[in-house]
Every structure is written in structure tokens, then in C-alpha cells.
């Protein structure tokens, strides 16, 4: 059974449709990469998966024991966060809030979970440091650790490698890959980085006005859309 099942979903704002007829499913342990040009509704789709927005029509169902609150989300950074006085530990532990319900404070198990996740992502030594003084790559790891505290099943990543240098980007993708294969966590990622998508993803969802492709990566590379899009990307790389 799939963790997420998306049936005939239309997305948009104020009645204006951005994407229509989205149909896809995400199985446990898979790595789905969403690609497509800017403004094609990738971020909107993510917000809809997280129930922050309602779809215009269609339905999204969660299955396989996945609950709404158990999705780990890595959002794009906001302006507020860039000069926010907070220590790394304070931010990571806020990922445990979905376990608290009405309990006002964190318990021992949650504090241990925070340390484990920071260790897993190699940021344990930064625990007491101020978030705004970290490098872009370190900041993304902090937010990823927070997402891991919220879930053991599904990570939703919105441009996890944007705004960081290429070495840190590569490390970030490796880390996500490791979480997916060794940690058995399902990954849904929005990315502009086609080469990374093609390297790590098991499935591809190519979104435009209407969904152009959904299926496995190999199927995508063989499809018409995939051939055109990836060829264009290579040409762009050549020019740059």
C-alpha cells in the first residue's frame, strides 16, 4: 500500500488552476523527485501534501500507517530565520513538538532523539551554536535534523540544496540518499537540480500546466518528455 495517493488533484489559487489532473502515488521507501519550471506549482503541491492548503479538487489520501503529523518537512528558508537568535539545539528539538500535543515540555526520550539525529547529520558539535552564524550548508542540516525529529517515515524536502555552495550541495544530496537507503525513509524532493534528481531518485514527477510524466526514473529517461527535458538540460550545461 502506498504512503501517499494522489487522485485527480487540481491545484491553484483563488480558483485559478495551476496544475490539473495530478495522479501519482508514493510507496514506502521510494525517492520521488518533483521537477518542472518555476511557477508550475511544485511548492503548492508540497503545501497541499502537508495539508497546509486544500486542493481545488481531487483527493490526497495517506496510507500505510502514515499520519498527517508524521511528515518531516524541510521548507525553504525565510527572511525571518536569517537573523533569528536561536541555538541549533533549540531549533532541532522544535521538530519534536508533534509528539507533545498538550504536554508543555519535552521529555527525555525526545531530547535523546534530538542528539541522535544531530549525530546522524554530523552537527552534534554545533548544538550550542547560534543558527544565524552557520554556513548555508550547516543551516540546511539543522533544518533537516528538525524534520527527522518529526518523522521516521516520510521526508518532504523543498529545494534542500538551494542557496548553498556546490560542495555542500553534493554532501546534502548524499546525506538524503543515505537517509533514504539506510534509514528506509521515503523521500519527496522538489529540486531544480536535474542531475541530482536523475542520480538519486527512484521516481520522477515532472509537473507543468498538466503533469507531463510520472513513473520510475528509467521510464522517464526513455520517455519523450524526459528525453527532451534532459537533453535541454545538458545543452544548458554546455553553454554555461
Amino acid at each position: 500500500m502506498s504512503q501517499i495517493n494522489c487522485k485527480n488533484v487540481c491545484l491553484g489559487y483563488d480558483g485559478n488552476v495551476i496544475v490539473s489532473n495530478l495522479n501519482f502515488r508514493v510507496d514506502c521507501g521510494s525517492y520521488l523527485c518533483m521537477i518542472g519550471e518555476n511557477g508550475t506549482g511544485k511548492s503548492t503541491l508540497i503545501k497541499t501534501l502537508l495539508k497546509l492548503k486544500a486542493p481545488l479538487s481531487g483527493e490526497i489520501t495517506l496510507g500505510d500507517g502514515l499520519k498527517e503529523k508524521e511528515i518531516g518537512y524541510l521548507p525553504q528558508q525565510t527572511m525571518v530565520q536569517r537573523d533569528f537568535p536561536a541555538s541549533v539545539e533549540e531549533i532541532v528539538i522544535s521538530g519534536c513538538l508533534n509528539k507533545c500535543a498538550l504536554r508543555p515540555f519535552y521529555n527525555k526520550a525526545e531530547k535523546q532523539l534530538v542528539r541522535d539525529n544531530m549525530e546522524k547529520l554530523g552537527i552534534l558539535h554545533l548544538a550550542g551554536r547560534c543558527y544565524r552564524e552557520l554556513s548555508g550548508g550547516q543551516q540546511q542540516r539543522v533544518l533537516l535534523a528538525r524534520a527527522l525529529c518529526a518523522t521516521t517515515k516520510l521526508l518532504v524536502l523543498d529545494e534542500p540544496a538551494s542557496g548553498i555552495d556546490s560542495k555542500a550541495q553534493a554532501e546534502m544530496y548524499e546525506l538524503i540518499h543515505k537517509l533514504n537507503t539506510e534509514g528506509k525513509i521515503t523521500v519527496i524532493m522538489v529540486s531544480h537540480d536535474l542531475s541530482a534528481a536523475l542520480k538519486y531518485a527512484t521516481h520522477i514527477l515532472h509537473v507543468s500546466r498538466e503533469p507531463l510524466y510520472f513513473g520510475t526514473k528509467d521510464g522517464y529517461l526513455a520517455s519523450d518528455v524526459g528525453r527532451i527535458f534532459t537533453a535541454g538540460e545538458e545543452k544548458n550545461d554546455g553553454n554555461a
Partner: protein
Amino acid sequence: MAMLDKLSMYMQYPFVRYALITGVLIALCSSLFGATLVLKRFSFIGDGLSHVAFGAMAIAAVVGVTNDMLIILTITVLSAVGLLSLGQHAGIKGDAAVAMISVSSLAFGYMLLNMFSASGNVSGDVCTSLFGSTSILTLSGADVIICIVLSITVVVLFGLFYNKIFAVTFDETFARATGIHARLYNLLVAVIIAVIIVLAMNLVGSLLISALIIFPALSAMRVFKSFRSVILCSAVSSVICAAMGILISVLAGTPVGSTIVAADAVVFILFSLVGLLIRKKK
């Protein structure tokens, strides 16, 4: 020594003790939520609400009810809720809406007081409620008890919801994705701010309240780097400034509200310098 003698002499008067107790409590409450307001870019809401509270006070004075606190509190809390929802569905942009509401409250408030006030000294009354010049020294025992109860409520609420308030302040989208009712907490913060503003009107007057809320947080953020230390530092510095301000004003005969705010401003400058030094050292 002469100064200490003078102080201990003043301390024998209940009104000075009342002023100190309420002043310190109000300063504590207002500083707790300062960081959240500043970081969420909600500072202007505090400013707007204080003007609304002035308008509400004018209405209360004109209607001539015995307990004007209740009317002022109701109107200000309702406005807080209104301003917050205006900010969310931006028909009129949030900051413009606040500016509009705050100047109209000031204008209507002053007009009402001029037209209907029974008091002989209208401009004196207005000056008092804008700058809080003497009202803190005329508090009754009942006022002090109300203030103590409300302050304890505010501090307890802040303690209970500290982690949630942090999450909603740092990253509202993530908080909502993990099932936190961010709107509810925004509302809670707005209502508490309204309560604090009404409380603080007695202390510093409605024009200077924002300073009481925002200065301690801004000072703390110059130097401290974790949310918890910022909150603790702003609480401590706010309490010290309020106590110092009240004592100085009693000794030197300066207006209470502006002395406290001046102390806050001096502390802000000191903290900025310390912050600069720390950064240079690195």
C-alpha cells in the same frame, strides 16, 4: 547616604511600593513577548494597540463607568484579534491598517474627551494617559491586585506555551505542517499583548508602551544568541530598567514613564556596544 535615606523614607509610602511592584511586574510581562513580536515583524501591532487603548480609555471616561479597566481591556483585545486577521487576509495591507486604526483612535479619543469630559483639566488628563506621568503613583490596592493576577497569568501562559511560541515564531509553516495550530498561538500572543498594553498604560502611558515591549528584546538580541537567553536577558534588563526608572523618578521628580523608557534606551545602547565588541573580537 542621603539618597538612601530619602529612598527608605519614600518606601514607607504605600503608593511608592505599589508603583514598584506593578512597574516591575508589567516590565516583566511586556519583555517576555517582545522577542516574538520583533522577530515575527509584529512590532507595529503593539504600537497600534496602544493607541486603540487610548481611544478606549477616552470612551470609558466619557461613559463614566466605575471600572474603566474592563471596557479598555475588552476593546483592546477585540482590536488585537481584528488587526491580526486583517494582517492575514491582506485586503488592506497590515501596516497601513494599523496606522489607520491607531491614528483614528487617537483622534476620536481626544475629540471625545474634549467634547464630553466632566473633568476641568482635559489636556492634563490626555497628557497623563499618553505619557503616564503620574497615574502609576495613584494606584489603589485593587488596581495592584488586578495587576498581580494578570501578570502571573501572563507569565504562566508564557511558560506553558514557550516551546510552541518558539516554533511558531521561528517557522510558522513547519509548525503548521507538524500539526501545531499556529493561528491559535498567533491569536494568543495578540490577546496577551493587548492585556499587557492595557496594564502598561498606567505605567508608561499609551505612547511609550511599545518601547517597554520592544526595547528589552532588541537589547538582548544584540548580545545573546539563543532564544532562551534572549528571553531571560530581556526579562532581567526590563525589570532592572523599570525598577531603576521608578526609583530615579521618585528621587529626581522626573515623569515615571519616560524615565523608564530612557533607562531602556541607555541599556540598548550599552548592549549594542557590547555586541559590536564581541563581533570585533572574533
